[in-house]
């Protein structure tokens, strides 16, 4: 049995090493005394600098957090409602919405960024946090839409009829039946939107303006204009943060599911 999968096993192990190697180097260098590449000794100075002397970084982090939470919230509300409409009801523009939500999935990010930049500038919008927010809602919306839709497709329309039969009006059916029963899909859509937003560089790069530096943009300028090992420390903190966040969200979701 072992021999039979030896080739795919070797490729898989090689791939995992390949995937983890950059992480390993980041962790290693984050504890490096020296500013340059070579290892000169163990030190926590970059972590200290990260937490005590990096105001721009934390401002960028703040912007990222605001944009991520705000755009995810708006995208989740709009996308969820859209998915509910498309899944269960017939209306004009239904197939238009279905098509429009899958287009962003097949277009490279740069196209979305460029077209939004030209759109905003052409209309005389001032580039800044607001345009970044709008752009993030736009690319998050289809993801939320599709994730919620996938959850909704598990249910039969007779659930809606049952609610009507038992005396619920449209609003009550929406708030007391559809939304709560789709909650796992909605939560997963929201979290996906938050992560997509925190992660985005390309689209943000095009539509951002003065004072609207997000964390990825900050990292970008750090790379372009002289790398500081603070970035190494930041990476390690971000990895740990993601692990902690994922872990607690996972348990939270389990708790919701079990309730």
């Amino acid at each position, binding site marked *: 049995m072992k021999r039979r999968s030896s080739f795919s096993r070797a490729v898989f192990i090689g791939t995992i090493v390949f995937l983890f190697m950059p992480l390993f180097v980041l962790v290693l260098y984050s504890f490096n005394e020296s500013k340059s590449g070579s290892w000169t000794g163990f030190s926590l100075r970059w972590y200290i600098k990260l937490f005590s002397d990096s105001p721009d970084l934390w401002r960028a982090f703040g912007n990222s957090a605001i944009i991520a939470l705000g755009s995810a919230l708006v995208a989740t509300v709009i996308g969820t409602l859209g998915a509910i409409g498309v899944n269960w009801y017939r209306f004009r523009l239904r197939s238009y919405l279905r098509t429009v939500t899958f287009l962003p999935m097949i277009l490279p990010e740069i196209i979305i960024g460029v077209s939004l930049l030209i759109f905003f500038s052409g209309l005389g919008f001032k580039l800044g946090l607001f345009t970044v927010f709008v752009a993030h809602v736009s690319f998050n919306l289809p993801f939320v839409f599709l994730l919620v839709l996938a959850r909704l497709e598990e249910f039969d329309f*007779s659930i809606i009829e*049952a609610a009507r*039969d*038992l005396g619920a009006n449209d609003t009550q059916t929406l708030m007391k039946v559809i939304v709560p029963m789709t909650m796992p899909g909605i939560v997963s859509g929201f979290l996906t939107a938050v992560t997509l937003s925190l992660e985005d560089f390309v689209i943000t790069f095009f539509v951002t303006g003065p004072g609207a530096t997000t964390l990825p943009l900050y990292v970008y300028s750090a790379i372009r204009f002289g790398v500081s090992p603070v970035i190494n420390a930041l990476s390690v903190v971000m990895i740990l943060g993601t692990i902690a966040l994922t872990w607690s969200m996972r348990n939270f979701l389990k708790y919701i599911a079990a309730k």
Partner: protein
Amino acid sequence: MIGSDVVIENVSKSFGDFAALNDVSIGIKKGEFFSLLGPSGCGKTTLLRIIAGFEQPESGTVLLDGKDVLPLPPDGRKANTVFQNYALFPHLTVFENVAFSLRLKKQPEAAVRERVNEYLRLVELQTHGSKKPAQLSGGQKQRVAIARALINEPSVLLLDEPLSALDAKLRQHMLIELDAIHDKIGITFIYVTHDQQEALSVSDRIAVMNAGKVLQVGTPQEIYEAPATDFVAKFIGETNLYEGSILSVNGELVTIESAEFGSVQVTDTDPPPSGTRVSWTVRPEKIRIGPDKPSTSRNALNLIQGRVDEPIYSGFQTKFYVKTAGGATLKVIKQHADWSDEGPEIAWKDEVWLSFSAEDAFLVEVKG
């Protein structure tokens, strides 16, 4: 609770080119257990959904206790539905599912608790109130759906193939429970099913439907024994159905000339005149089978000679396919009552005699 009578008059409904219901009229009495029986696509579910208020017919009326309910929304009618796939709210517990409509009406919590517990007791789920639907078995889900539909005290309960998702054994059990619930609360049940066994065993009356039309309305006995059309004869139970033309009529005794059997005597209360082309039927269990020619002088007994083509033994009975001299194949069922009944064994390729009384054979349909 008291039931309502439901009157359906000239209801028609089509989906695009497909005529789901074609001028259907049925009268359902107060407190009746009434089944709509037919193959899938016959329009039975559409009719139920029209009564429930989920569909609007193109023409016709639906009256509950003489009052036209078509303008009313589903929750404005004193009818509630038990859905085919239960349609339980997955995010709510059993208790909350049943309490759903009472809480919408903002009834005081104490009253809600009392009522919900009462109905959970009715369906014997009082200890399962805090479970989620996903933790229940199929039969339990079904009972939650019933309790949830009944808590509004409707005068009509609409059941859309409620047992189709259950396995055969559980279906039998739930059927008995449904019957018991019906007897206890006494409201009108309208029960949609494609399973003739289900319909025959619990219904007070049955409407057999096919292709958007009601073919026959009657008690289970009437429908089984004296089917009104070829379709009903074939759809309900197993049968032998043949055609021929009427040779002579003597009161209710009709003699039919057919290519396969020569002449056969059957019964009909209002027979058409001689020469009419008709179909006739006899149920397999009404035919006796034996190795020897029965010695009887009754003249209303049909005697047919044949050869066993295929005996199928299934424990409590054996089914024989018997090829007659005229080239027809008759289905015959012999019950194994007890040891004294066994007689000589009949095997494959044996020559046998079949006999059935004219009173067990019926004229079904006049052929154009």
